[in-house]
Protein backbone atom coordinates (compact mmCIF):
# COMPACT_ATOMS: atom_id res chain seq x y z
CA UNK A 1 0.00 0.00 0.00
CA UNK A 2 1.67 3.26 -1.05
CA UNK A 3 1.01 6.94 -0.28
CA UNK A 4 -1.25 8.56 2.26
CA UNK A 5 -4.44 6.54 2.40
CA UNK A 6 -6.40 8.68 4.83
CA UNK A 7 -6.91 12.31 5.78
CA UNK A 8 -8.93 14.25 8.31
CA UNK A 9 -11.85 16.22 6.85
CA UNK A 10 -13.30 19.35 8.47
CA UNK A 11 -16.37 18.69 10.65
CA UNK A 12 -17.68 21.19 13.22
CA UNK A 13 -18.29 18.91 16.17
CA UNK A 14 -17.00 15.48 15.36
CA UNK A 15 -14.28 13.84 13.32
CA UNK A 16 -14.45 12.85 9.71
CA UNK A 17 -11.77 10.70 8.07
CA UNK A 18 -11.54 10.12 4.31
CA UNK A 19 -9.98 6.73 3.62
CA UNK A 20 -8.98 4.84 0.48
CA UNK A 21 -8.19 1.22 -0.31
CA UNK A 22 -7.62 -0.84 -3.42
CA UNK A 23 -10.02 -3.46 -2.10
CA UNK A 24 -12.70 -3.63 0.58
CA UNK A 25 -10.25 -5.50 2.82
CA UNK A 26 -7.63 -2.79 2.42
CA UNK A 27 -10.23 -0.05 2.97
CA UNK A 28 -11.19 -1.68 6.29
CA UNK A 29 -7.55 -2.03 7.28
CA UNK A 30 -6.73 1.61 6.44
CA UNK A 31 -9.88 2.82 8.22
CA UNK A 32 -8.90 0.95 11.40
CA UNK A 33 -5.34 2.30 11.30
CA UNK A 34 -6.65 5.82 10.64
CA UNK A 35 -9.08 5.61 13.54
CA UNK A 36 -6.36 4.37 15.92
CA UNK A 37 -3.96 7.10 14.78
CA UNK A 38 -6.61 9.83 15.06
CA UNK A 39 -7.52 8.97 18.63
CA UNK A 40 -3.86 8.74 19.66
CA UNK A 41 -4.05 5.30 21.27
CA UNK A 42 -0.79 4.48 23.08
CA UNK A 43 0.38 1.00 24.01
CA UNK A 44 2.10 -0.12 27.18
CA UNK A 45 4.33 -3.10 27.92
CA UNK A 46 2.55 -6.31 28.64
CA UNK A 47 1.62 -9.60 27.08
CA UNK A 48 0.17 -9.52 23.59
CA UNK A 49 -2.51 -11.84 22.30
CA UNK A 50 -3.94 -12.87 18.95
CA UNK A 51 -7.49 -12.15 17.97
CA UNK A 52 -9.59 -13.01 14.96
CA UNK A 53 -12.82 -11.40 13.81
CA UNK A 54 -15.41 -12.67 11.36
CA UNK A 55 -18.25 -10.49 10.15
CA UNK A 56 -20.90 -10.52 7.48
CA UNK A 57 -23.12 -7.67 6.35
CA UNK A 58 -25.73 -6.81 3.79
CA UNK A 59 -23.79 -3.86 2.36
CA UNK A 60 -20.29 -2.40 2.39
CA UNK A 61 -21.17 0.53 4.64
CA UNK A 62 -22.64 -1.71 7.34
CA UNK A 63 -19.62 -4.01 7.13
CA UNK A 64 -17.27 -1.06 7.57
CA UNK A 65 -19.18 0.26 10.61
CA UNK A 66 -19.37 -3.21 12.19
CA UNK A 67 -15.65 -3.69 11.63
CA UNK A 68 -14.65 -0.35 13.16
CA UNK A 69 -16.95 -1.05 16.12
CA UNK A 70 -14.91 -4.23 16.71
CA UNK A 71 -11.69 -2.20 16.80
CA UNK A 72 -13.29 0.44 19.02
CA UNK A 73 -14.51 -2.20 21.44
CA UNK A 74 -10.96 -3.57 21.75
CA UNK A 75 -9.93 -0.10 23.00
CA UNK A 76 -12.89 0.79 25.20
CA UNK A 77 -14.15 -2.61 26.25
CA UNK A 78 -10.93 -4.58 26.68
CA UNK A 79 -8.32 -1.78 26.99
CA UNK A 80 -6.24 -3.35 24.20
CA UNK A 81 -4.79 -1.85 20.99
CA UNK A 82 -5.01 -3.89 17.81
CA UNK A 83 -1.70 -3.91 15.89
CA UNK A 84 -0.57 -5.74 12.75
CA UNK A 85 -4.12 -5.83 11.49
CA UNK A 86 -4.81 -8.02 8.47
CA UNK A 87 -8.21 -7.97 6.80
CA UNK A 88 -9.69 -9.89 3.91
CA UNK A 89 -13.15 -9.45 2.50
CA UNK A 90 -14.45 -12.21 0.29
CA UNK A 91 -17.64 -12.14 -1.79
CA UNK A 92 -20.30 -11.28 -1.17
CA UNK A 93 -19.33 -9.39 2.03
CA UNK A 94 -17.59 -11.74 4.47
CA UNK A 95 -14.84 -10.13 6.49
CA UNK A 96 -12.13 -12.17 8.08
CA UNK A 97 -9.47 -10.36 10.13
CA UNK A 98 -6.65 -11.14 12.50
CA UNK A 99 -4.70 -8.83 14.72
CA UNK A 100 -2.30 -8.90 17.60
CA UNK A 101 -3.41 -6.82 20.55
CA UNK A 102 -1.29 -5.19 23.20
CA UNK A 103 -2.27 -3.42 26.45
CA UNK A 104 -3.62 0.12 26.07
CA UNK A 105 -1.76 2.79 28.03
CA UNK A 106 -4.04 5.69 27.12
CA UNK A 107 -5.93 7.58 24.44
CA UNK A 108 -5.45 11.25 23.61
CA UNK A 109 -8.94 11.73 22.20
CA UNK A 110 -11.70 9.21 22.70
CA UNK A 111 -14.18 8.13 20.05
CA UNK A 112 -17.74 7.50 21.22
CA UNK A 113 -19.03 5.81 18.11
CA UNK A 114 -18.68 5.12 14.40
CA UNK A 115 -21.63 6.65 12.55
CA UNK A 116 -23.50 5.91 9.32
CA UNK A 117 -23.76 9.65 8.65
CA UNK A 118 -23.60 10.18 4.86
CA UNK A 119 -21.55 7.01 4.66
CA UNK A 120 -21.12 5.75 1.11
CA UNK A 121 -18.28 3.50 -0.11
CA UNK A 122 -17.56 4.73 -3.63
CA UNK A 123 -15.70 2.90 -6.34
CA UNK A 124 -13.42 4.63 -8.82
CA UNK A 125 -10.52 3.64 -11.05
CA UNK A 126 -8.11 3.48 -8.08
CA UNK A 127 -10.33 1.37 -5.87
CA UNK A 128 -12.63 2.34 -3.01
CA UNK A 129 -13.02 5.56 -1.09
CA UNK A 130 -15.25 6.74 1.73
CA UNK A 131 -15.58 9.35 4.46
CA UNK A 132 -16.42 8.11 7.94
CA UNK A 133 -17.81 10.43 10.63
CA UNK A 134 -17.01 9.53 14.23
CA UNK A 135 -18.87 10.86 17.24
CA UNK A 136 -16.23 12.17 19.64
Amino acid at each position, binding site marked *: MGGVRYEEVEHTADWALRVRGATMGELCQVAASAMLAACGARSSDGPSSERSVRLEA*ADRETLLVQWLEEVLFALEGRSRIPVRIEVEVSPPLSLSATWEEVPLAGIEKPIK*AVTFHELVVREDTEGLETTIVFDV
Partner: protein
Amino acid sequence: MTLKTPRPQKQDLVRQSPLMWEIPVSFRSDMRVPVRLFADEALVEDALGDASLGQAVNAATLPGLVSHVTVMPDVHQGYGFPIGGVAATRLPDGVISPGAIGYDINCGVRLLASRIAYGEAEPRIPELASALYAHCPSGVGVKGSVPLSSKDLDKVCREGARWAEQKGFAQAGDLEATEEEGTISGAEPSAISPRARERGRPQLGTLGAGNHFVEVDVVDQVFHDEAATAMGLEVGNLVVQIHCGSRGFGHQVCSDYVREFQPAIARYGIQIPDRELVCAPLDSPEGKSYFAAMACAANYAFANRQILADHARTAFDEVFRGRVRDTGLTQVYDIAHNMGKIEEHKIESDTVRVCVHRKGATRAFGPGFEGLPPRYRRLGQPVLVPGSMGTASWVLLGTEGSMALAFGSTCHGAGRRMSRHQAKRSIRGDRLRQELEDQGVRVRAGSLPGLAEEAPRAYKDVDAVVEVVAGAGIAAKVARLRPVAVVKG
Protein backbone atom coordinates in the same frame (compact mmCIF):
# COMPACT_ATOMS: atom_id res chain seq x y z
CA MET B 1 -28.04 5.73 -1.65
CA THR B 2 -27.14 8.53 0.73
CA LEU B 3 -26.57 11.92 -0.84
CA LYS B 4 -24.59 14.84 0.52
CA THR B 5 -26.97 17.04 2.51
CA PRO B 6 -27.94 20.16 0.53
CA ARG B 7 -27.53 23.30 2.63
CA PRO B 8 -30.29 25.88 2.88
CA GLN B 9 -29.16 29.41 2.05
CA LYS B 10 -30.16 32.67 3.75
CA GLN B 11 -32.87 33.30 1.13
CA ASP B 12 -34.50 29.98 2.08
CA LEU B 13 -35.17 31.25 5.61
CA VAL B 14 -38.43 33.11 6.21
CA ARG B 15 -38.27 35.48 9.17
CA GLN B 16 -41.29 34.87 11.43
CA SER B 17 -40.29 37.29 14.20
CA PRO B 18 -37.04 39.11 15.14
CA LEU B 19 -35.48 35.93 16.59
CA MET B 20 -37.39 33.14 14.83
CA TRP B 21 -36.90 31.90 11.27
CA GLU B 22 -38.57 29.16 9.29
CA ILE B 23 -37.52 26.86 6.48
CA PRO B 24 -40.89 26.00 4.91
CA VAL B 25 -41.78 22.52 3.65
CA SER B 26 -41.57 23.89 0.13
CA PHE B 27 -37.76 23.94 0.51
CA ARG B 28 -37.56 20.21 -0.23
CA SER B 29 -40.25 17.84 -1.42
CA ASP B 30 -39.58 15.19 1.22
CA MET B 31 -40.03 17.53 4.22
CA ARG B 32 -43.07 16.63 6.32
CA VAL B 33 -42.90 19.69 8.61
CA PRO B 34 -41.10 23.04 8.53
CA VAL B 35 -37.88 23.77 10.41
CA ARG B 36 -37.99 26.59 12.95
CA LEU B 37 -34.69 28.24 13.92
CA PHE B 38 -34.20 30.55 16.89
CA ALA B 39 -31.32 32.91 16.16
CA ASP B 40 -30.24 36.51 15.69
CA GLU B 41 -28.58 37.61 12.44
CA ALA B 42 -25.07 36.59 13.56
CA LEU B 43 -26.15 33.17 14.81
CA VAL B 44 -28.10 32.58 11.58
CA GLU B 45 -24.82 33.15 9.71
CA ASP B 46 -23.09 30.66 12.04
CA ALA B 47 -25.82 28.09 11.41
CA LEU B 48 -25.50 28.60 7.66
CA GLY B 49 -21.74 28.09 7.95
CA ASP B 50 -21.92 24.33 8.40
CA ALA B 51 -24.31 21.50 7.53
CA SER B 52 -26.56 21.92 10.57
CA LEU B 53 -29.59 23.38 8.78
CA GLY B 54 -29.35 20.75 6.03
CA GLN B 55 -29.38 18.14 8.77
CA ALA B 56 -32.45 19.79 10.31
CA VAL B 57 -34.18 19.59 6.91
CA ASN B 58 -33.27 15.88 6.79
CA ALA B 59 -34.75 15.46 10.28
CA ALA B 60 -37.95 17.11 9.02
CA THR B 61 -38.54 14.08 6.77
CA LEU B 62 -39.05 11.59 9.63
CA PRO B 63 -42.46 9.86 9.65
CA GLY B 64 -44.97 10.92 12.28
CA LEU B 65 -43.52 14.36 13.01
CA VAL B 66 -45.85 16.96 14.44
CA SER B 67 -45.77 20.73 14.01
CA HIS B 68 -42.12 21.53 13.21
CA VAL B 69 -38.48 20.63 13.86
CA THR B 70 -36.97 23.17 16.26
CA VAL B 71 -33.38 24.36 15.94
CA MET B 72 -31.74 26.17 18.84
CA PRO B 73 -29.33 29.13 18.51
CA ASP B 74 -26.40 26.97 19.69
CA VAL B 75 -26.96 24.55 16.80
CA HIS B 76 -24.03 22.97 15.06
CA GLN B 77 -23.47 20.18 12.61
CA GLY B 78 -23.71 16.69 14.04
CA TYR B 79 -24.27 13.34 12.39
CA GLY B 80 -27.73 12.71 10.95
CA PHE B 81 -29.57 15.08 13.28
CA PRO B 82 -28.07 18.47 14.19
CA ILE B 83 -26.81 19.14 17.70
CA GLY B 84 -29.32 21.65 19.03
CA GLY B 85 -32.34 20.02 17.38
CA VAL B 86 -35.77 19.05 18.74
CA ALA B 87 -38.31 16.86 16.92
CA ALA B 88 -41.58 15.42 18.22
CA THR B 89 -43.22 12.35 16.72
CA ARG B 90 -46.80 11.35 17.37
CA LEU B 91 -47.67 8.23 19.37
CA PRO B 92 -48.37 5.44 18.72
CA ASP B 93 -46.96 5.02 15.23
CA GLY B 94 -44.61 7.95 14.78
CA VAL B 95 -40.98 6.91 14.75
CA ILE B 96 -38.19 6.90 17.29
CA SER B 97 -34.69 7.49 15.91
CA PRO B 98 -31.63 6.57 18.00
CA GLY B 99 -29.45 8.90 15.93
CA ALA B 100 -31.80 11.80 16.71
CA ILE B 101 -31.08 11.29 20.42
CA GLY B 102 -27.38 10.69 20.08
CA TYR B 103 -24.72 8.27 21.27
CA ASP B 104 -24.28 9.87 24.68
CA ILE B 105 -27.79 9.08 25.89
CA ASN B 106 -28.84 11.42 28.71
CA CYS B 107 -25.74 13.49 28.47
CA GLY B 108 -26.70 16.28 30.84
CA VAL B 109 -25.74 18.78 33.48
CA ARG B 110 -26.09 18.87 37.24
CA LEU B 111 -25.69 22.06 39.26
CA LEU B 112 -24.84 22.07 42.97
CA ALA B 113 -24.91 25.27 45.02
CA SER B 114 -22.67 26.05 47.99
CA ARG B 115 -22.78 28.66 50.74
CA ILE B 116 -19.07 29.25 50.37
CA ALA B 117 -18.07 32.78 49.31
CA TYR B 118 -15.46 32.91 46.55
CA GLY B 119 -13.53 35.55 48.50
CA GLU B 120 -13.14 33.11 51.36
CA ALA B 121 -12.33 30.14 49.10
CA GLU B 122 -10.02 31.77 46.55
CA PRO B 123 -6.66 30.68 48.04
CA ARG B 124 -7.87 27.08 48.08
CA ILE B 125 -9.24 26.91 44.51
CA PRO B 126 -6.10 25.17 43.10
CA GLU B 127 -6.34 22.59 45.88
CA LEU B 128 -10.07 22.20 45.18
CA ALA B 129 -9.42 21.64 41.46
CA SER B 130 -6.87 18.93 42.31
CA ALA B 131 -9.23 17.29 44.81
CA LEU B 132 -12.05 17.21 42.24
CA TYR B 133 -9.66 15.76 39.66
CA ALA B 134 -8.61 13.08 42.13
CA HIS B 135 -12.14 12.18 43.23
CA CYS B 136 -13.94 12.29 39.86
CA PRO B 137 -12.27 9.64 37.64
CA SER B 138 -11.88 10.94 34.10
CA GLY B 139 -10.39 9.86 30.80
CA VAL B 140 -11.09 7.14 28.27
CA GLY B 141 -12.30 3.74 29.39
CA VAL B 142 -11.35 4.64 32.94
CA LYS B 143 -12.80 2.47 35.67
CA GLY B 144 -15.00 4.05 38.28
CA SER B 145 -15.18 3.71 42.01
CA VAL B 146 -18.44 1.73 41.82
CA PRO B 147 -17.88 -1.48 39.83
CA LEU B 148 -21.18 -3.21 39.20
CA SER B 149 -22.16 -6.83 39.28
CA SER B 150 -24.48 -7.90 36.49
CA LYS B 151 -27.39 -7.83 38.93
CA ASP B 152 -26.51 -4.33 40.13
CA LEU B 153 -26.27 -3.11 36.55
CA ASP B 154 -29.85 -4.29 36.01
CA LYS B 155 -30.90 -2.31 39.08
CA VAL B 156 -29.09 0.81 37.85
CA CYS B 157 -30.86 0.39 34.49
CA ARG B 158 -34.27 0.24 36.15
CA GLU B 159 -33.80 2.65 39.05
CA GLY B 160 -31.23 5.24 37.95
CA ALA B 161 -30.40 7.85 40.58
CA ARG B 162 -32.69 6.05 43.05
CA TRP B 163 -30.21 3.15 43.05
CA ALA B 164 -27.40 5.59 43.81
CA GLU B 165 -29.46 7.04 46.66
CA GLN B 166 -30.00 3.57 48.14
CA LYS B 167 -26.23 3.03 48.03
CA GLY B 168 -25.60 6.21 50.00
CA PHE B 169 -24.52 8.49 47.14
CA ALA B 170 -27.35 11.02 47.54
CA GLN B 171 -28.62 13.39 50.15
CA ALA B 172 -32.16 14.60 50.86
CA GLY B 173 -33.53 16.70 48.04
CA ASP B 174 -31.22 15.43 45.29
CA LEU B 175 -33.74 13.20 43.56
CA GLU B 176 -36.63 15.65 43.57
CA ALA B 177 -34.29 18.20 41.96
CA THR B 178 -33.51 15.85 39.06
CA GLU B 179 -35.40 15.60 35.77
CA GLU B 180 -37.87 12.69 36.13
CA GLU B 181 -36.56 12.38 39.72
CA GLY B 182 -33.59 10.54 38.22
CA THR B 183 -35.53 7.53 36.92
CA ILE B 184 -37.07 7.12 33.46
CA SER B 185 -39.84 4.53 33.33
CA GLY B 186 -39.92 1.83 30.66
CA ALA B 187 -36.35 0.59 31.17
CA GLU B 188 -35.83 -3.08 30.37
CA PRO B 189 -32.31 -4.53 30.85
CA SER B 190 -33.04 -7.46 28.52
CA ALA B 191 -32.95 -4.91 25.66
CA ILE B 192 -29.24 -4.31 26.39
CA SER B 193 -26.54 -6.18 24.45
CA PRO B 194 -23.82 -8.20 26.22
CA ARG B 195 -21.26 -5.76 24.83
CA ALA B 196 -23.06 -2.74 26.32
CA ARG B 197 -23.22 -4.55 29.65
CA GLU B 198 -19.49 -5.22 29.48
CA ARG B 199 -18.77 -1.55 28.83
CA GLY B 200 -21.21 -0.33 31.45
CA ARG B 201 -20.23 -2.42 34.45
CA PRO B 202 -16.86 -0.81 35.25
CA GLN B 203 -17.62 2.79 34.24
CA LEU B 204 -20.23 4.03 36.71
CA GLY B 205 -19.05 7.08 38.64
CA THR B 206 -16.73 8.34 35.90
CA LEU B 207 -16.64 11.61 34.01
CA GLY B 208 -15.21 10.40 30.70
CA ALA B 209 -13.40 12.72 28.33
CA GLY B 210 -14.19 15.01 25.37
CA ASN B 211 -16.34 17.98 26.33
CA HIS B 212 -17.32 16.50 29.70
CA PHE B 213 -16.19 18.30 32.80
CA VAL B 214 -16.61 19.25 36.41
CA GLU B 215 -16.46 23.01 36.78
CA VAL B 216 -16.43 25.28 39.81
CA ASP B 217 -18.05 28.63 39.14
CA VAL B 218 -18.88 31.79 41.03
CA VAL B 219 -22.39 33.23 40.79
CA ASP B 220 -21.55 36.39 38.89
CA GLN B 221 -24.92 38.06 38.30
CA VAL B 222 -28.51 37.37 39.27
CA PHE B 223 -31.37 38.42 36.95
CA HIS B 224 -34.33 36.84 38.76
CA ASP B 225 -34.13 37.25 42.55
CA GLU B 226 -37.03 34.97 43.45
CA ALA B 227 -35.79 32.09 41.29
CA ALA B 228 -32.18 32.53 42.42
CA THR B 229 -33.30 32.41 46.06
CA ALA B 230 -35.38 29.27 45.41
CA MET B 231 -32.30 27.70 43.80
CA GLY B 232 -29.93 28.74 46.59
CA LEU B 233 -27.87 30.90 44.24
CA GLU B 234 -26.27 33.94 45.82
CA VAL B 235 -23.93 36.36 44.07
CA GLY B 236 -20.32 35.65 44.99
CA ASN B 237 -20.87 32.07 46.16
CA LEU B 238 -19.31 28.96 44.61
CA VAL B 239 -21.35 26.44 42.60
CA VAL B 240 -20.35 23.22 40.84
CA GLN B 241 -21.46 21.97 37.41
CA ILE B 242 -21.12 18.33 36.40
CA HIS B 243 -21.46 17.65 32.66
CA CYS B 244 -21.42 14.00 31.56
CA GLY B 245 -23.66 11.18 30.40
CA SER B 246 -24.04 7.43 30.13
CA ARG B 247 -20.39 6.75 29.16
CA GLY B 248 -19.53 3.70 27.04
CA PHE B 249 -22.77 2.05 28.11
CA GLY B 250 -24.93 4.61 26.31
CA HIS B 251 -22.55 4.81 23.34
CA GLN B 252 -22.86 1.06 22.86
CA VAL B 253 -26.66 1.08 23.22
CA CYS B 254 -26.99 3.71 20.50
CA SER B 255 -24.43 1.98 18.23
CA ASP B 256 -26.25 -1.34 18.61
CA TYR B 257 -29.63 0.10 17.67
CA VAL B 258 -28.43 2.34 14.82
CA ARG B 259 -26.95 -0.82 13.29
CA GLU B 260 -29.96 -3.02 14.07
CA PHE B 261 -32.41 -0.44 12.70
CA GLN B 262 -30.70 -0.38 9.27
CA PRO B 263 -32.84 -3.23 7.88
CA ALA B 264 -35.92 -2.07 9.85
CA ILE B 265 -36.52 0.96 7.67
CA ALA B 266 -37.08 -1.25 4.63
CA ARG B 267 -39.41 -3.45 6.67
CA TYR B 268 -41.58 -0.46 7.54
CA GLY B 269 -41.29 1.20 4.13
CA ILE B 270 -39.52 4.28 5.57
CA GLN B 271 -37.45 6.50 3.27
CA ILE B 272 -34.72 8.56 4.93
CA PRO B 273 -32.13 10.88 3.41
CA ASP B 274 -29.29 9.77 5.73
CA ARG B 275 -28.74 6.31 7.20
CA GLU B 276 -27.81 7.84 10.56
CA LEU B 277 -31.48 8.84 10.88
CA VAL B 278 -32.65 5.22 10.89
CA CYS B 279 -35.82 4.83 12.87
CA ALA B 280 -38.70 2.51 13.63
CA PRO B 281 -42.31 3.13 14.65
CA LEU B 282 -42.64 3.66 18.40
CA ASP B 283 -45.20 0.85 18.60
CA SER B 284 -43.06 -1.64 16.62
CA PRO B 285 -40.98 -4.34 18.37
CA GLU B 286 -37.81 -2.54 17.28
CA GLY B 287 -39.05 0.85 18.50
CA LYS B 288 -40.16 -0.54 21.85
CA SER B 289 -36.89 -2.38 22.31
CA TYR B 290 -34.81 0.74 21.61
CA PHE B 291 -36.93 2.85 23.96
CA ALA B 292 -36.44 0.24 26.72
CA ALA B 293 -32.67 0.23 26.13
CA MET B 294 -32.46 4.02 25.88
CA ALA B 295 -34.28 4.31 29.23
CA CYS B 296 -31.67 1.96 30.76
CA ALA B 297 -28.86 4.19 29.49
CA ALA B 298 -30.69 7.31 30.64
CA ASN B 299 -31.03 5.84 34.13
CA TYR B 300 -27.35 4.86 34.09
CA ALA B 301 -26.48 8.51 33.33
CA PHE B 302 -28.68 9.81 36.17
CA ALA B 303 -26.93 7.39 38.55
CA ASN B 304 -23.56 8.43 37.14
CA ARG B 305 -24.09 12.14 37.78
CA GLN B 306 -25.50 11.32 41.22
CA ILE B 307 -22.31 9.44 42.16
CA LEU B 308 -20.12 12.20 40.73
CA ALA B 309 -22.08 14.71 42.82
CA ASP B 310 -21.23 12.64 45.88
CA HIS B 311 -17.55 12.66 44.84
CA ALA B 312 -17.68 16.45 44.40
CA ARG B 313 -19.14 16.78 47.91
CA THR B 314 -16.28 14.66 49.25
CA ALA B 315 -13.75 16.92 47.52
CA PHE B 316 -15.38 20.10 48.90
CA ASP B 317 -15.49 18.66 52.39
CA GLU B 318 -11.87 17.56 52.20
CA VAL B 319 -10.67 21.01 51.11
CA PHE B 320 -12.93 23.27 53.17
CA ARG B 321 -13.70 21.31 56.34
CA GLY B 322 -12.79 23.45 59.36
CA ARG B 323 -12.19 26.45 57.09
CA VAL B 324 -15.74 27.49 56.25
CA ARG B 325 -18.96 27.16 58.24
CA ASP B 326 -20.79 24.94 55.76
CA THR B 327 -18.99 22.75 53.20
CA GLY B 328 -22.26 21.29 51.85
CA LEU B 329 -23.45 21.32 48.24
CA THR B 330 -27.20 21.47 47.61
CA GLN B 331 -28.57 20.24 44.33
CA VAL B 332 -30.12 23.02 42.23
CA TYR B 333 -31.23 20.72 39.39
CA ASP B 334 -30.09 18.00 36.99
CA ILE B 335 -31.18 18.07 33.34
CA ALA B 336 -30.71 15.87 30.29
CA HIS B 337 -29.88 17.32 26.90
CA ASN B 338 -29.76 14.10 24.78
CA MET B 339 -32.94 12.16 25.29
CA GLY B 340 -36.18 10.85 23.83
CA LYS B 341 -39.12 11.51 26.17
CA ILE B 342 -42.79 10.63 26.01
CA GLU B 343 -44.63 13.87 26.79
CA GLU B 344 -47.91 15.62 26.15
CA HIS B 345 -47.88 18.87 24.22
CA LYS B 346 -50.52 21.23 22.89
CA ILE B 347 -50.52 21.22 19.11
CA GLU B 348 -52.95 23.93 18.03
CA SER B 349 -55.98 23.12 20.20
CA ASP B 350 -55.24 19.41 20.77
CA THR B 351 -53.18 17.78 23.48
CA VAL B 352 -51.01 15.22 21.74
CA ARG B 353 -48.80 12.46 23.16
CA VAL B 354 -45.45 12.63 21.44
CA CYS B 355 -41.92 11.34 21.68
CA VAL B 356 -39.77 14.46 21.94
CA HIS B 357 -36.27 13.85 20.59
CA ARG B 358 -33.88 16.37 22.10
CA LYS B 359 -30.31 16.17 20.86
CA GLY B 360 -28.23 18.98 22.28
CA ALA B 361 -31.36 20.67 23.57
CA THR B 362 -32.66 20.97 27.12
CA ARG B 363 -36.12 20.30 28.43
CA ALA B 364 -37.47 23.66 29.63
CA PHE B 365 -40.95 23.14 31.07
CA GLY B 366 -42.78 26.26 32.09
CA PRO B 367 -44.49 27.29 35.33
CA GLY B 368 -47.09 24.89 36.72
CA PHE B 369 -45.47 21.62 35.67
CA GLU B 370 -46.33 19.08 38.37
CA GLY B 371 -43.12 17.10 38.00
CA LEU B 372 -41.13 20.00 39.46
CA PRO B 373 -40.18 20.30 43.14
CA PRO B 374 -42.66 22.59 44.95
CA ARG B 375 -40.11 25.41 45.24
CA TYR B 376 -39.84 25.61 41.43
CA ARG B 377 -43.40 24.78 40.40
CA ARG B 378 -44.63 28.36 40.23
CA LEU B 379 -41.43 29.57 38.55
CA GLY B 380 -40.71 26.97 35.88
CA GLN B 381 -38.08 24.30 35.43
CA PRO B 382 -34.44 25.25 36.02
CA VAL B 383 -32.36 24.99 32.84
CA LEU B 384 -28.58 24.66 33.00
CA VAL B 385 -26.56 26.00 30.08
CA PRO B 386 -22.83 25.40 30.38
CA GLY B 387 -20.67 27.72 28.33
CA SER B 388 -17.42 26.80 26.69
CA MET B 389 -14.47 26.21 28.99
CA GLY B 390 -13.33 29.48 30.55
CA THR B 391 -16.46 31.42 29.61
CA ALA B 392 -19.74 32.04 31.43
CA SER B 393 -22.46 29.51 32.03
CA TRP B 394 -26.13 30.29 32.63
CA VAL B 395 -29.02 29.22 34.79
CA LEU B 396 -32.37 29.79 33.09
CA LEU B 397 -36.01 28.89 33.60
CA GLY B 398 -38.44 27.16 31.28
CA THR B 399 -41.32 29.40 30.19
CA GLU B 400 -44.77 29.33 28.68
CA GLY B 401 -43.03 30.37 25.45
CA SER B 402 -40.82 27.27 25.42
CA MET B 403 -43.98 25.17 25.82
CA ALA B 404 -45.79 26.96 23.02
CA LEU B 405 -42.94 27.32 20.54
CA ALA B 406 -40.40 24.57 21.14
CA PHE B 407 -41.99 21.48 22.75
CA GLY B 408 -40.86 22.69 26.18
CA SER B 409 -37.22 22.96 25.10
CA THR B 410 -34.40 25.46 24.92
CA CYS B 411 -30.67 25.66 24.17
CA HIS B 412 -28.02 23.46 25.84
CA GLY B 413 -24.72 25.33 25.62
CA ALA B 414 -22.59 27.59 23.49
CA GLY B 415 -22.44 25.37 20.41
CA ARG B 416 -19.29 24.71 18.44
CA ARG B 417 -18.19 27.11 15.74
CA MET B 418 -14.70 25.80 14.87
CA SER B 419 -13.98 22.21 13.85
CA ARG B 420 -11.91 20.09 16.21
CA HIS B 421 -9.35 19.71 13.44
CA GLN B 422 -9.05 23.48 13.04
CA ALA B 423 -8.93 23.97 16.83
CA LYS B 424 -6.11 21.44 17.17
CA ARG B 425 -4.18 23.14 14.32
CA SER B 426 -4.54 26.66 15.67
CA ILE B 427 -4.56 26.23 19.46
CA ARG B 428 -1.93 24.60 21.67
CA GLY B 429 -3.24 22.88 24.77
CA ASP B 430 -0.36 24.00 27.01
CA ARG B 431 -0.72 27.66 25.94
CA LEU B 432 -4.47 27.51 26.41
CA ARG B 433 -4.07 26.13 29.90
CA GLN B 434 -1.69 28.99 30.71
CA GLU B 435 -4.12 31.55 29.26
CA LEU B 436 -6.94 30.16 31.38
CA GLU B 437 -4.73 30.11 34.49
CA ASP B 438 -3.80 33.76 33.78
CA GLN B 439 -7.53 34.55 33.70
CA GLY B 440 -7.91 32.94 37.11
CA VAL B 441 -9.37 29.61 35.88
CA ARG B 442 -7.54 26.62 37.38
CA VAL B 443 -7.39 23.73 34.92
CA ARG B 444 -6.82 20.05 35.57
CA ALA B 445 -6.93 18.08 32.32
CA GLY B 446 -5.87 14.59 31.34
CA SER B 447 -5.18 15.45 27.69
CA LEU B 448 -3.69 18.70 26.36
CA PRO B 449 -4.79 18.09 22.72
CA GLY B 450 -8.25 17.34 24.12
CA LEU B 451 -8.10 20.65 26.00
CA ALA B 452 -7.19 22.51 22.78
CA GLU B 453 -10.21 21.06 20.96
CA GLU B 454 -12.47 22.48 23.67
CA ALA B 455 -10.92 25.96 23.62
CA PRO B 456 -13.37 28.84 24.21
CA ARG B 457 -12.75 30.29 20.75
CA ALA B 458 -13.87 27.02 19.15
CA TYR B 459 -17.37 27.83 20.45
CA LYS B 460 -20.03 30.45 19.88
CA ASP B 461 -20.61 33.20 22.43
CA VAL B 462 -22.86 31.62 25.07
CA ASP B 463 -24.09 35.05 26.16
CA ALA B 464 -25.36 35.67 22.61
CA VAL B 465 -27.10 32.28 22.61
CA VAL B 466 -28.81 33.07 25.91
CA GLU B 467 -29.88 36.53 24.69
CA VAL B 468 -31.67 34.79 21.81
CA VAL B 469 -33.54 32.22 23.89
CA ALA B 470 -34.47 34.88 26.44
CA GLY B 471 -35.45 37.37 23.72
CA ALA B 472 -37.52 34.76 21.89
CA GLY B 473 -39.24 33.83 25.14
CA ILE B 474 -38.17 30.16 25.19
CA ALA B 475 -36.30 30.64 28.49
CA ALA B 476 -35.88 33.30 31.19
CA LYS B 477 -32.56 34.37 32.69
CA VAL B 478 -31.87 33.58 36.34
CA ALA B 479 -28.11 33.79 36.88
CA ARG B 480 -24.80 34.01 35.11
CA LEU B 481 -21.89 31.91 36.38
CA ARG B 482 -18.17 32.63 35.99
CA PRO B 483 -15.69 29.72 36.01
CA VAL B 484 -12.80 29.47 38.49
CA ALA B 485 -11.76 25.81 38.08
CA VAL B 486 -12.23 23.22 35.33
CA VAL B 487 -11.59 19.49 35.58
CA LYS B 488 -11.55 17.50 32.32
CA GLY B 489 -10.58 14.05 31.18
